[in-house]
C-alpha cells in the first residue's frame, strides 16, 4: 500500500527540529487530536510507547505533542516553550511511559478532556513527519489516506446514517468508501466516510447539526 503520496512528504515538512518523526510528527498527532476533539481541552493524558517512550525527552516529543494539542503548526517557534504555553492556556498534562510493545515503535495514545467531554486517539508517526491516526475512542480506523475523509461520532440510532448521507447527496458529494462501527446496540458509534472531494465548512456545520451526531471532523489528505 502506498503510504506516502506527495513529494512534500519527502521534501518537508518545514519544521522546528530535532526529529521529523519524534518532533514534527508528534506536533501533527497532537494537532489531529485537538482538531478531532473540536474544543479547547483543559486536560491531556498522554501515553508514550516504544521509541517515543524511550527518547521523548531528547527529541522534545513532549513539547511537540503539547504544542500540537495547543494548535501550533510544525514550524511554530513557540514549540520549544510549549510547556509554558500550556500553563498559560490552562492545559494540565500528564505523560506516561508505557512498556507495552506496539506494532509501530513511534506510537502515542492521547486522551483530551474538558469537564465530562473526552476523546481518545492513538496516533503513529511513521517517518519523515508523516502520521496516521489508527484508533479513535476505541474504534480502529482504516483510512487509506488517499482521499479526504470525514469522521463522525454519533449515537447508534435509526436515521443517523441516513441523515448524514442525505446531506452529502443533497450537496452532490460522492462517497467512495464508508464504514460504520458501534460499541454496542444503541451506544457510541463511528462513521468513517471517504469522499472524492473536500467538503466546505457549510456542509460540515450542516452535518454537525444533523440528528444523533455528537462530533465531526474532517481529515484532509
Amino acid at each position, binding site marked *: 500500500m*502506498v*503510504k*506516502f*503520496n*506527495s*513529494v*512534500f*512528504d*519527502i*521534501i*518537508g*515538512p*518545514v*519544521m*522546528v*527540529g*530535532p*526529529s*521529523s*518523526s*519524534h*518532533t*514534527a510528527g508528534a506536533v501533527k498527532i497532537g494537532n489531529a487530536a485537538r482538531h478531532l476533539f473540536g474544543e479547547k481541552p483543559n486536560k491531556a493524558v498522554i501515553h508514550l510507547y*516504544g*521509541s517515543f517512550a*524511550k*527518547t*521523548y*525527552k*531528547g*527529541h*522534545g516529543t513532549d513539547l511537540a505533542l503539547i504544542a500540537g494539542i495547543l494548535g501550533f503548526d510544525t*514550524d511554530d*517557534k513557540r*514549540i*520549544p516553550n510549549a510547556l509554558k504555553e500550556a500553563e498559560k492556556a490552562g492545559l494540565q498534562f500528564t505523560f506516561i511511559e508505557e512498556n507495552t510493545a506496539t506494532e*509501530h*515503535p*513511534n506510537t502515542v495514545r492521547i486522551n483530551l478532556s474538558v469537564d465530562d467531554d473526552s476523546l481518545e486517539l492513538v496516533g503513529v*508517526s*511513521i*517517518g*519523515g*513527519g*508523516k502520521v496516521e491516526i489508527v484508533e479513535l475512542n476505541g474504534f480502529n480506523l482504516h483510512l487509506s489516506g488517499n482521499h479526504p475523509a470525514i469522521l463522525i461520532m454519533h449515537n447508534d440510532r435509526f436515521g443517523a446514517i441516513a441523515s448524514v448521507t442525505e446531506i452529502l447527496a443533497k450537496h452532490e458529494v460522492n462517497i467512495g468508501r464508508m464504514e460504520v462501527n458501534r460499541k454496542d446496540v444503541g451506544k457510541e458509534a463511528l462513521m468513517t466516510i471517504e469522499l472524492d472531494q473536500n467538503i466546505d465548512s457549510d456542509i460540515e456545520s450542516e452535518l454537525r447539526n444533523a440528528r444523533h451526531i455528537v462530533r465531526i471532523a474532517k481529515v484532509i489528505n
Partner: protein
Amino acid sequence: MFRTVAELVAQAEENNISLAEVMIRQEMDVYDLAREAIIERMDQNLTVMEQAVKDGLAGVQSHSGLTGGDAVLIQNYMKNHEPLSGSLVLDAVSKAVATNEVNAAMGIVCATPTAGSAGCVPGALFAVKERLNPSREEMINFLFTAGAFGFVVANNAFISGAAGGCQAEVGSAAAMAAAAVVEMAKGTPQQSAEAFAITLKNMLGLVCDPVAGLVEVPCVKRNAAGASNAIVSADMALAGVQSKIPCDEVIGAMYRIGKQMPSALRETAEGGLAATPTGKALAAKLFNQNS
C-alpha cells in the same frame, strides 16, 4: 504513479523528460494542482534550507551542548588550507553539518526526508551549486529529483531510524542527494539511479544509536558522511560506473536489513554509540540536569 526506481527512470526516458519533471507531473496529477503552486511550495522549502545553512555557518549551539560550532570550524579550515578531500566535498560536509546543527538547536529546517537526515540534500546541493552555477529553477528541480527517489524508498521500505535504522534515514537522504547531483550535472536518468544505488549500498546496515536519544551524536556527523558519499557516488556514476545490484533491489535489501535490526539499534538509545561508557555518561549527566 511510479512505484519503483525502474518505473521512475522508464517514465523519464519514454517521455524524454527529467526525473524532476516526472515527479512534478505526478504531484500535479495526484493532487489536481497547478504547476505553479507546486513549484512555489518547493521554492519555499529551498529558502528554508538556504536559511538553515546560513544560520549554521554563523554558528549555533544545541541546548544539550553536545553539538554546534563544527560547521564554522570546517569553513575556517577551508579558508586557510586546501582540504585533502577537495573543497567541494568539504564544502558539502560543512553545509550538511550546519543544517543538522541548526536542527539539533531546535531551529527551523526542511526535513529531507527526515529532520535527522536534513543535512545531506542541502549540503550536496549548495556545494555543487558553487561549481555548476544552476538557475533557481534547476535548484528547485534538484529537490524534486531527490524527492522522487525518496518517494520510492518511503513506499517500499522506510525512511525513519525508529523503523529501519540510520541506513533508512541518512542512507536514503545521501542516496537521494547523489541522484539529484547527477541530474544537475547533466547525467542521464539511469546514471541517477546508479548513483542512488551506489550510495545506499555503502550505507546499508547503518544503525540508529543516538546518544541520550538526542538527534545530535552521531547524527550531525553522519550527515557529513552522507553528503560526501553522495558527491563521490555521483562522480562514480557520471564516470560510467554501474551498480551490479539494481537500485530497487538495493532498496529491498535496506528494507530487509532494517527488519532484522534489533530494537536497541533503532532509535531507542539503548545500543551502539548510545551504550558506550561515554554515551551513557553523557545521557546520565543530561537527564540529571533536566530533572
